């Protein structure tokens, strides 16, 4: 007998609880409130408790700090790429500028970390924005290429002119008081920036940013200078990166040209792909996954990069939408097969 070919397709339907919690009825019962709050509490609670859970293994506490720095970069990449429309490969520039600014403020002016870190965040963001200003009219891959060039350029200039300690870097940067301060300042920064940005992109200013991403001509025709808004977006993103860089230089008590290394440009992008672009929380998730994997693979020696690449490829091929998108879909919708 011939097999009957039945065509069917997958239908996705919002879960009842997702629909009920969309409006003001979200506060109608504890069940609804829990549905909304649980994922957020899981993230916040998890991040706050992680340092304590890792207190037995100080090495992994250090890794946690690095995860946070990469998370800052990944959120900044996601924000620029998916909400302002600038694909920036300048993560290394932001880290480098932040690290050098903090180190110079600390060693030359003798400022304590409590001042150098906020100053480096603001000043560094300003410097990065000024550097990238001439490139702001560019879009898409052109902006990506130019922003990739800057960290390479900065490293070579420091090396060639032998400024800021040349290849040795700036030594003798004051460390942070203790590891708890390190971790909680970074975790706090990640959480505040994550939830702050999520709110920002839905405010009126954020809608203009998203307008620039969707259709910059229409924004111009609405009487808004898009260069101003792109510059503001780059400032927000680069300041986040510089915060990470400043923390890094105090963490290592050193600032050097390896902080312009391309890892800082590339890993955040990988994390965004794995975690799910356009979600802001996804990139943090991606970093929580990728950075530890990269640490665990140290045993493989030089094969580390190869294994890492295979994992990345697998993610891109099998779950290209990203973990966060996949997860929130499962959380909010159920799927069923319907016959056509």
């Amino acid at each position, binding site marked *: 007998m011939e097999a009957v070919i039945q065509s069917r397709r997958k239908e996705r339907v919002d879960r009842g609880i997702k629909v009920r919690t969309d409006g003001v009825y979200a506060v109608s019962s504890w069940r609804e409130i829990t549905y909304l709050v649980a994922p957020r509490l899981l993230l916040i609670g998890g991040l706050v408790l992680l340092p304590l859970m890792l207190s037995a293994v100080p090495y992994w506490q250090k890794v946690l700090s690095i995860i946070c720095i990469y998370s800052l970069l990944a959120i900044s990449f996601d924000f620029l790429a998916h909400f302002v429309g600038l694909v920036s490969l300048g993560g290394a520039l932001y880290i480098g500028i932040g690290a050098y600014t903090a180190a110079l403020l600390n060693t030359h002016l003798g400022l304590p970390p409590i001042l150098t870190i906020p100053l480096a965040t603001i000043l560094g963001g300003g410097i990065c924005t000024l550097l990238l200003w001439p490139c702001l009219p560019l879009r898409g891959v052109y902006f990506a290429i130019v922003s990739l060039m800057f960290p390479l350029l900065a490293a070579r200039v420091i090396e060639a002119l032998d400024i800021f300690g040349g290849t040795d870097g700036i030594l003798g940067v004051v460390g942070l008081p203790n590891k708890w301060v390190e971790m909680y300042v970074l975790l706090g920064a990640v959480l505040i920036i994550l939830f702050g940005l999520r709110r920002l992109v839905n405010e009126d200013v954020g809608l203009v940013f998203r307008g620039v991403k969707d259709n910059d001509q229409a924004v111009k*025709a609405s009487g808004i200078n898009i260069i101003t808004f792109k510059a503001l977006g780059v400032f927000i993103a680069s300041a986040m990166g510089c915060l990470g860089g400043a923390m890094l230089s105090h963490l290592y008590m050193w600032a050097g040209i390896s902080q312009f290394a391309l890892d800082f440009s590339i890993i955040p992008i990988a994390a965004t792909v794995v975690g799910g672009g356009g979600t802001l929380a996804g990139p943090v998730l991606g970093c929580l996954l990728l950075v530890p994997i990269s640490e665990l693979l140290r045993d493989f020696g030089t094969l580390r990069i190869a294994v890492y690449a295979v994992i990345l490829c697998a993610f891109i091929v099998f779950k290209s939408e990203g973990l966060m998108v996949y997860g929130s879909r499962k959380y909010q919708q159920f799927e069923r097969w319907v016959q056509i």
Partner: protein
Amino acid sequence: MSAETMLSLKGVTKRFGGVQALTEVDMEVRRGDILGIIGPNGCGKTTLVNCITGFVRPDQGQVIFQGRDITGWPPHKVADAGLTRTFQVMRPYYSLAAYKNLIVPLFSPRARRTGGWRGGGRMGDRNTVAVDILEEIGFERDSYVPYKTASSLPTGYLKRLELARCLALRPDLIICDEVFSGLSMSEMASMLPLMEKLRAEGVTLIMVEHRLRELFSLANRVMVLNFGAKVCEGNSEEVMANEEVKRAYFGSEEVFEYV
């Protein structure tokens, strides 16, 4: 008519490489006018709009808007001065809900200065004003249409959204680049009263159009372009009677006779 001049063009010329897109175009629009601009495909209508609104810089000539020389101003400054345009190819923010599309113009410096559409930005929050504009322009407030993402809206609504984006700025002059093109007859029929309402409210309009019947019912003056040069200007009967216009527009046989 002695109404004040809103916009005047003096000898606007634009070349793209070897292509002469516009040649010495003169034009004048007075307050309350509805000027139609027609012409065959590729005659420079959209280039003219681009030159006026700053998306393209004219090689020669002057664009004077409300007594100010705005030649070569960037688009956002032109819009800020009160001269807005719609795009022939619709340019909504696809990922945003329809009413959120209007938050962007309502957030612009001009709208914050003037209160935007009917000064509404001063009274209510921008979301309410945005839905007000959409309701005025044919999005049913209580339906879900204004709250759908722009990517899921049909062409007719997107054209209206273009117009709504201009209205949000509370402009002095709107240039509509082919608002009727690509619309079904019924969509067009529902769009016409809208334009008539705008006219009744005294908005000055320039309409670039291919739909002559709809245009002639609205416009009080019509200008014809061909090969980037002005062929003639006048009311609709004068234009239709003009021999050169017939030649440019309706038939090539007569042209062959001249050759």
